[in-house]
């Protein structure tokens, strides 16, 4: 799986892109967030308050119950502020 981070999520985690191999119990975005929280202090900080985050799977906005798989591109970011 490819993971992408933007804005302050990227800054807290300390990288913009990484590739991970998922354990079999990670089936949804919510599972993935729980899994990533244990990666380190930056991850725990970035994912501390899920309400402040948005997620896209394969470049589509999705909710926390969306399914994720090994071939997906999953991006985490704050609510958008363009325009």
């Amino acid at each position, binding site marked *: 799986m490819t993971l*992408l981070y*933007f*804005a*302050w999520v990227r800054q807290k985690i300390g990288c913009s892109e990484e590739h991970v191999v998922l354990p079999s119990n990670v089936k949804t975005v919510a599972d993935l967030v729980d899994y990533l929280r244990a990666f380190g202090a930056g991850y725990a900080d970035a994912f501390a308050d899920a309400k402040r985050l948005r997620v*896209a799977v394969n*470049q589509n*906005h999705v909710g926390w119950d969306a399914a994720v798989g090994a071939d997906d*591109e999953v*991006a985490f*970011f*704050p*609510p*958008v*502020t*363009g*325009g």
Partner: protein
Amino acid sequence: MTARISIQHEDFDVAEEISALTQDRTDIGAIVTFAGCVRADDGLTSLTLEHYPAMTEREIAGHVAEAQQRWPLVAVTVIHRIGTLKPGDAIVLVVTASSHRRAAFEAADFLMDYLKTQAPFWKQEERGGVRHWVEAKTSDDDDAKRWR
């Protein structure tokens, strides 16, 4: 309908964009342009825009297609700048063209509301060397809900 979507560092010229859109056409009766600029609020010295390249154009194209379904549009141009901008610089341009004004006005308003709440851009403000990420406004979400 013709659609032009561009995510770019460079500035844009509103008159040129209108000319490009109306060239050799006689079916356009109304053109609405919205241009957004950087304000020097509270001593802001610069604004830096980050985006999610793989998703941005696709997300905007999806909303342009939705606008086309909802209103009889002839042409749409959306330009969004990225990188570091200064107060007074232009950030975003939406141009909508239709036979009549109502469709052009409403489609431009719709597209701006969706750019604000769905397109994956993030603004970071700088004031006197201190940077902070702009928080999303609930008023923008409320604006976008008008179209549901």
